[in-house]
């Protein structure tokens, strides 16, 4: 079955620095989602990528999906303390029944020092 591997597992950066989180799939991705989770809260959907080479941005966060659709990166520009949290990538793997199985990476814990 498909697996998602995230790197790094944790990251501590100084406020204002740029950073990148990677998500690598063992199979071709049909859709890749990025979520953010703050401590004690649920997952908040950030962005979805579906096409090879696709890139999306929201405020200072940019997500890309490579042409082969097996790797995605999340880039934060000029990080702020509000960016701190756990970032998870997720994907929908089709089942034979026509439904989808959702899988997730183990997450990257980001801390931003003021």
């Amino acid at each position, binding site marked *: 079955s498909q697996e998602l591997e995230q790197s790094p597992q944790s990251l501590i950066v100084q406020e204002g620095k740029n950073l990148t989180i990677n998500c690598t799939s063992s199979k071709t991705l049909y859709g890749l989602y990025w979520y953010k989770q703050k401590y004690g809260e649920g997952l908040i959907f950030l962005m979805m990528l579906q096409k090879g080479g696709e890139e999306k941005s929201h405020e200072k966060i940019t997500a890309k999906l490579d042409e082969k659709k097996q790797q995605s990166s999340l880039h934060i520009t000029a990080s702020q303390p509000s960016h701190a949290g756990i970032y998870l990538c997720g994907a929908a793997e089709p089942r034979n029944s026509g*439904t989808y199985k959702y899988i997730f990476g183990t997450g990257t814990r980001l801390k931003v020092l003021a």
Partner: protein
Amino acid sequence: NAGVTQTPKFRVLKTGQSMTLLCAQDMNHEYMYWYRQDPGMGLRLIHYSVGEGTTAKGEVPDGYNVSRLKKQNFLLGLESAAPSQTSVYFCASTSGRQPQHFGDGTRLSIL
């Protein structure tokens, strides 16, 4: 919009007790899911439902039961709680191959 609502938010149980976690969504989504999140383990799927009246096992279903009697509600039951079930439980819903919407989670401790 409420989205996905989980109740309760916190609960402490003694070993052997039973309880039910409730998940309600107001987005008319067909698919609903229950996950548990443990340190270093990521999100693991317990059970899921592809529509009213249907349920299916995920990757860690033992010790849990679920019911989806109404489209908007998905219940997760623990018949005889064990310390290994101490975790944060998340419910999610979606309409298909779309991003899942998550509730805020239920923190459950089993003593």
